[in-house]
Each structure stands twice: as structure tokens, then as C-alpha cells.
């Protein structure tokens, strides 16, 4: 790992200014995505701006119809939050199956959402619930946030401060984990929301996406059987040693059915 400058600002403003003012600088949250790639010299930031001391970013607030989770909340914190479990049990459940215990103790919601790994779990919930990504300078609706492989609508240096998840009527997440890495080969988040049925699929493509066909079928009938006969086109799906595009397409439907069966 190449050496770098290290900053630990105490305010959001200072953090944003540091990243804006230093070419090649990056935020460091839990480090569970950034450090593994830095260790392999696949990322070589000139400076790291630690978010650890920023105040107010590690709170979970349930407010009427919204669960607002601070960017620095760890996966473990979300998994164990009684408030989250009560409002959106699917979200707590999802967080409890990210990586492993040690990763959940460090990794953060903001880091996951900013990193936008195609095999990450949170993006499925963010898109599946139609959440809002709140930053130092604005708000990004989920539907236009995930742009592509590791690509989001965040501007350079924009800092995620929280994610606001609308509380759905019912929701569930079903994950088919990569046997070695534990990331999602396919993860399907199904939600019955005020705005209708939403189905978001992670792991299968370059970034998380919604399935209009599944949403339509489930709008007609919220049953696993409603998804019979739906096929997911393989054209844009990932293919690797763990799963071909064809197998992933198949898993999308299987996991969607399992999520529907588990809705609560």
C-alpha cells in the first residue's frame, strides 16, 4: 500500500473542503471496501479523509413514515437496531447478512451506498424502497442514483450523510450469496410501498436495477406464483466463475419468489 496523507476532520464542512482541495483524496468510512482494494494497489489515493469523527452521522431515527439512517451507521448497528427491525424488518435482516461479523462491525451504510458495488446488498434496499440519499449538498432519489458499475449520481467529493428509507407496507430481501466472497450473486428486494410494488435486483447486473415485469406481475397478485413464467433477459447480466448470466437470470426469479414468500 502506498503511503498517503491522513486527515480526521471534525466537521462535515471541513471534510468536504479537504476532499475538494486535494487531488486524489478520498473519504474513508469503514474501510471495508476501500482498504481491500488499496492493499492490492488497485486504488492509490493521495489522501484519506476519515469520516469517523464527524458528529451526528451515526444516528438512526424513525420519524413517521421514514427511517433515517446516518451514513456512518455500521451494518451491525442497523442489523441490531430495534427501531429498524420494527419499522422495516427486511432492512435489518439485509444488514445482518452483509459480509461477516467483523465486516459488519466496521462497514457503513454510507460507504456501501457511495461505493455502489454491483454485488453489494444495501443498493437493493435503497432502490427497492425508493429511498433518498441525503448528502452535504442535496438529495438524490434512488431511482436516478445508481448509474452503473461503481457509478452513482454523486458529484466528485459529495458526501453522503444519510439515507432516508420510506417505511413500506411489507418488504423482504432474499440473497443468494457467493460461496467464497459472501457478496450477492443475486439479491432481490421486494417491497409493497405506498407508491406500488417495487422489485430491485442487485448482484445480477452492472448495478442494481428494477424489474418492471416482476413489479407488474406482483401488482396483479402478490404471490410467488405470480412470477411463474417471467424470464429475466440475460443480455446485461454479469457472468463469472460463480454464476453464468443464464444462471443469474434464473436466480433472479427464484430469489424474487422467496422474497415474496417472506414478505412482512
Amino acid at each position: 500500500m502506498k503511503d498517503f496523507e491522513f486527515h480526521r476532520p471534525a466537521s462535515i464542512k471541513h471534510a468536504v473542503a479537504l476532499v475538494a482541495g486535494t487531488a486524489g483524496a478520498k473519504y474513508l468510512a469503514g474501510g471495508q471496501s476501500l482498504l481491500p482494494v488499496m492493499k492490492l494497489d488497485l486504488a492509490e489515493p493521495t489522501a484519506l479523509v476519515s469520516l469517523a469523527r464527524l458528529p451526528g452521522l451515526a444516528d438512526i431515527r424513525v420519524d413517521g413514515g421514514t427511517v433515517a439512517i446516518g451514513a456512518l451507521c455500521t451494518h451491525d448497528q442497523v442489523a441490531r437496531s430495534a427501531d429498524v427491525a420494527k419499522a422495516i424488518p427486511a432492512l435489518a435482516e439485509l444488514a445482518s447478512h452483509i459480509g461477516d461479523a467483523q465486516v459488519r462491525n466496521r462497514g457503513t451504510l454510507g460507504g456501501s451506498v457511495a461505493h455502489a458495488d454491483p454485488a453489494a446488498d444495501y443498493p437493493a434496499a435503497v432502490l427497492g424502497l425508493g429511498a433518498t440519499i441525503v448528502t452535504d449538498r442535496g438529495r438524490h432519489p434512488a431511482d436516478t442514483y445508481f448509474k452503473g458499475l461503481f457509478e452513482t449520481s454523486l458529484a466528485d467529493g459529495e458526501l453522503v450523510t444519510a439515507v432516508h428509507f420510506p417505511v413500506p407496507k411489507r418488504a423482504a430481501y432474499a440473497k443468494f450469496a457467493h460461496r467464497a466472497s459472501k457478496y450477492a450473486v443475486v439479491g432481490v428486494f421486494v417491497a409493497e410501498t405506498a407508491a406500488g410494488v417495487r422489485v430491485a435486483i442487485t448482484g445480477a447486473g452492472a448495478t442494481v436495477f428494477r424489474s418492471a415485469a416482476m413489479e407488474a406481475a406482483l401488482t396483479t397478485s402478490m404471490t410467488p406464483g405470480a412470477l411463474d413464467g417471467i424470464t429475466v433477459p440475460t443480455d446485461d447480466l454479469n457472468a463469472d466463475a460463480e454464476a453464468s448470466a443464464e444462471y443469474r437470470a434464473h436466480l433472479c426469479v427464484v430469489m424474487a419468489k422467496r422474497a415474496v414468500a417472506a414478505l412482512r
Partner: protein
Amino acid sequence: MGNAQGIGAAVKRKEDRRFLVGRGQYTDDVTLPNQSYAVFVRSPYGHAKVNGVEAKAALAAPGVLAVLTGADVAADGLGGIPCGWLVKSKDGSPMVEPPHPALAQGKVRHVGDPVAMVIASTKAAAKAAAALVEVDYEPLPAVGLLANAIAPGAPQVWDEAPGNVCFDWHIGDPATTDAAFAKAAHVVELDLVNNRVAPNPMEPRAANGNFDGANDQYTLYTTSQNPHLTRLLLAAFTLKVPEHKLRVIAPDVGGGFGSKIFHYAEELLVLWASRRVGRPVKWTSDRMEAFLTDAHGRDHISNAKLALDANGKFLGLRVHTYAAMGAYLSTFAPAVPTYLYATLLSGPYDFPAIYAEVKAIFTNTVAVDAYRGAGRPEATYLLERLVEKAARQLGMDRVELRRKNLIRADQFPYQTQVALQYDIGDYQATLDLALEQADYAGYAARAAASKAKGKLRGFGMSTYIEACGIAPSALVGALGARAGLYEAANVRIHPTGSVTVFTGTHSHGQGHETTFAQLIADRLGVSTDQVEVVHGDTDRIPFGMGTYGSRSASVGGSAIVKALDKIVDKGKKIAAHLLEASVADIEFKDGQYRVVGTDRVKAFGEVAFAAYVPHNYPIETVEPGLEESAFYDPKNFTFPGGTHLVEVEIDPDTGVVEVASVTIADDVGVIINPMIVDGQAHGGLAQGIGQALLEEAVYDAEGQLTNGTYMGYCMPRAADLPNFKVGNHVTACTHNPLGIKGVGEVGAIGVPPAVINAVLDALAPLGVTDISMPATPEKVWRAIQAARAGKGA
């Protein structure tokens, strides 16, 4: 009395404390004064010419002490890494034994082949400088896959090995086997692949070399299962420094599973480099490097045919196997697919005729050598898949077909058609025990319950045999081994009666510090706390061949027993003197010398004290002191065996195979410590299940390892495995003093075919008849899809 801690007692391990408090000392934990660090520049190509190595920039980088290349290795006359076993082809010609320079000279032949060694005062500096070494590679056609290497016109790994053939060997009698097939009522045929796996001990390899110029003395700390063997190869072949100037220490070693038997180039290079830079030089493998440079296991392609009579009695077996060697011959590589594989093809069965041909093939990959089980898992997998297929093809019950063909208890000693003579066993007994413990009778109900959940349940079994404690030296010598396979021990009784045992075996998880202490406790009636077991240091231990092939207890333990016998005998003479009786009247029991039939006794401790303070002593006939050495050369292999039963549950929608239960019944001979024996079985089972369902080291055609990290190579985790039911039925080995057979490898040998047989059993109703290891979810799903499509069509 010793018995509470003696043979058969589940004594808690003496070594645990240091590991549990973080005071184990592994090779990388050793940092010497003035330590420097080495990092290797390794080939990114499967096969390439090396036209030049430019080290100027690296040499100029901060902290760099030296950059060494193949040219330096050649100039200093270092020997190539030798192969320890010569196998001859059918026609009597020796195997092709290509050179293996420690650093590449002119060509690289696999990804990871070392080209240059950068030494710097810190690891970070060495790593940074290594990135500055420029190597001018000219890529050559490469062959990464065994299947491609045997095809006509395949790229050549070595010019001197046409068709990439290292040797073309056979065993058994082709004529009687032909005759058996000619009269067969049924012939069952199977093509199969034994997947390549990476051993992955959790501790990566490391080596720390130190040359002490003042005394002209070399010391090597290394992650080795057999420090004496490493010293022997360094002394005789590679470093070429006499043994008394060379000390090899294998401190705590974090698992080996075979991969730390072999003499690796890095061990030689850190010693040599230390002499050149005048500082100790440490190298520690990272995990990616380990995937690319630790010898792998398995990698066979086979065709097998089984001949049966109308009643299902086995008449003959014919096997043809291609076995990958990798690019260079690792220390024991040629022995694995020959004397450790084909000689086991009779399994636990009574076979009138067997013929096997094995072609060893070079590929542009890291070497393949012994990995837990070494050859015996490959033999068992082939045989048990074949027997299962026979049961299906003939419409016979899988248990009954095996029962009919198992060697009966009254047939021992049993001479196989492939050179081995099994001394003893009771295969029916382990079969019965396993079936009972697995509640085989209740299987149908469990299958129905799975079905009700929408899952497919399958039952799979394997009855297997293995050969351990490989020996005798004269036999293995005749078979091509370039080393002996005896073991050495030294037992030192201290004046107050405490004991230090020096053993040539090496514990890297097996718990020798406890089991060998139990042996002493059992024989001498001392407590295990009074015993210290020392291993892993060539300066402290007389000699040794190390730990592999489940040999430590049966061969190493026997050497200790021999030394103990000498101690006890000498003690008798001393006791006779002290008790004023004749030696013939002295017996030794429960830690006491007694004049037979009297209450006149001397405790062992008193005798030991007398030996060191010989005031009242038979000094004319008996030397003072109480310390004895022994070398034990086994008379035969030992033959553990047993039955492994597996139930799986398959999710037909995803293809995910869940191991629902594993029940095994083994006969590993006499058991010193049942807790440790069970633990060894558990570990082997995890590796066997890993091979069957999760693990495969995947090279592509060009020789790139495509999944050489834990993000891609799937190691078994806790959630992938069930609890294991382990049972034992003991028949004592007839030819060693302890009756021990060995347990280190049984799990890895017996269980893979049981898993796959269970998977195929679950899928049989759908029409699936074959699947290869590892049975990954997608593979299983595809098999289901293909079978359904086939049925529909």
C-alpha cells in the same frame, strides 16, 4: 499410575495454552536482529522466455540491499530443487526429470515462477522495489490444463518431454485383467476428473535464513513438516553445505496438509541471500503467492472399467489415469499418482485382477504433489464412484454390492493385485457400525420429510481403505524413493525422573506434545506434565523424516516405544542392583520396578536418580545416565479403513447442496487420544467435503490461475458444514508395537465420493447420472436442467 493419562485417554492438549494466549511461535513471528526482508518477482505468464532482467531502478530504491536473479544463482553454483522419487516408465526408462533452478534461468514455466529476489531493510521497501524490476518476457505457447496437455499438438512444457509425458507407468497384470473382462457378465465404465485443489494451510509459508559468518553456520526457520528432510536436501543438493553447518528449525507450524513437506526454492534462497547481504533474510508468502507457489493436490483425468459376474462379484478393474505434475517435479510428486494411488485401487475389495496405467503429464502450472491423502483420495473417489454406478446399473442395493465384495475378516493378511499386503481389518464391522450410527433404517422417512419441504435428499456412501505410515525403507527404495522412511526418537530421562522426548516427526496441529507424552506416561507411569516433547529442530533432534502420510504415531510413536524399551531394560539392571536381586527377577509395571512376587520395589524416579548419581550402582556393567535413542523402520504400511456415509439435501430451484449429515466409522487401529483422533477425522472431513462441493483451483488454458484468492477459491466455512458423527472400530495393526494405523487423512480420503454419490442419489429420480467435483450450485442446477430437457425431448 500412568493409565489415567495413558493410551486411550482423552487428555487435553499440553500445547494449547501457548496457542490460546497468543504465544505460539510461527516462522513469521521470528524476527532476528538486523532482519532484512525478501520479496520475489514472479512470472505473470504461464510460459515465457526471459530475455533479460533489469534491476537498476530497484537497486537504487531506498532500503534495497540486493536484487538477485537466476544468473546469480548459476554463478554461485546453487543446485536445482531436486525430486525425491524416481519413477520408471513401463519400458524401464527413467521419468523425464527436468531441471528446476531456484530462480528462473532463461524461461519461466508457470505463473508464479520466481525470476528475481529483492532484499531490502523493510518489507515495504522490498515490495516497492520489486515493482521496479523490469523483466523482458517473450510469451510462449502455454498449456494450463491437463486435458489440453495430453492432446496431440499441445504446447510443450519441456522439449525433453514429448507429448508432455513425464512417465508412462503401470501396475498389475494386463493379461489376467483382460481375461477377467472377457468372462464378465457386466462391465461398468466411468470417466472422471479429480479436481485440482489448493492445500491452504491457514499459515502461509515463510522462511527466515541467517548466515553467521563468524562460525560459518547457517540457520533456517521455515514452515516445514520435516525439517530434517529439508536440511538433507539443502545439504546434499541445493545449498551444498554440510549438515553440521546447517540448522533447520520448523517452529510452530500453522497446518501443512502435505504442502509443507516439500523443499521449496525460497528456503534455499533466503539462506544464500543472507550470506550475500550479511543479514538475516525473511520471506513470508502472502495468500495470493501461496495459491501460485504452494504445491497443489489431485488433478487427475481417469477412465475406469469394472468387470462383474452375474451375481455382482467383482472380477476385474482396469484404470487409465492422466496425472498432472505441473511444470516442475516437486519433492514427492511422482510417487503420488503411482505408489500412493494405483497401489490402492483394490480398495477394501477382493479383486482377482487389476491393471492400471498412469501417465504423468507436465502442465504450465505450479507443481502438484501430496495433499492430505495424496493419491489415496483419488483412488477412493474412482473406485467408490464406480462401485456406486455398478449398483445402479445392475439394479443392486449399494450396501449389499459392497458387502458382497469387501475382503472378509478371515482373509487377512490379504494380498492385493496391486502390490500391497493388508495386514488386518474388519470392513464389515465398520460398515455395520456406520449404518447403525447413521440410522440408515430411518433414511426413507428423512427423504420423505425433505421431499415435503420441496428438497431432494440423497444418501451416499463409500467404503474405503488407505495405506499409511509409508514404509519399509527397503521397499520404498526399490520403488524409487531417494530417502528412507523410518523414524527416529531419543528419550532422555532426567535425574529427577522427568522426561524429554526428541522426535523426528513434526507436529503442525496433530498434538504430538500430548499424545507422545501419553505414550511415555503409559509406559513409565509418570504424569504427562513430567514429559516435554521436542520436535522441529535439527540441532536438538537426532534425525527424523517428519510428519505426513499419517505416519507420526505409527512410525514415530514406534520409535519412541523402542527407545522406551531400552530405557526400561537398562532400568531393570539398575533396579536389580538396588534391590539386590537378579535382573531376570525384576518386572516393571505402573512405574515401579519390583522383584517378582515380592513387595520389594524401586520407583522409576529412584532408578533414574541412581543412574545419574551412581553411588550405589552396577558401574562395571552399566553406564551411568538414562537416555536412549532408537530408529524404527516399519515392516509394512498400515491400513486404516472404514465407511463414510453422507446425506445431502438439494434445493432443486438453486442447485444448492446442503450436507445434512456425515457419519463415519473408521478403523484407525489403536487410539492413543480419542479426542485428538476425532479432531483429525473432523478436519479431514471438512477438506474432503470442500473438495467435493466447494474447492477447485481453476487454471485457464494459458496457465493463469483464475481464482487464486479467498474471494474466488471457496474455502469451507463453519456454515457450510454439519456436525460430524465419528465412530471407531479397532483392529490393531499387527506389525508395529502400538497397533496404531493412522488417522490424519481418513476424512479427506473417504468422504468425497460419499458426498458425490449422495448428490447423484438425490438427483437420480430426475435422471441425472453424472456430476463432477466440486458440485457447485450452478453445476447441479445445470445437471437438473439438462436432465429435465432430456426427459422432455
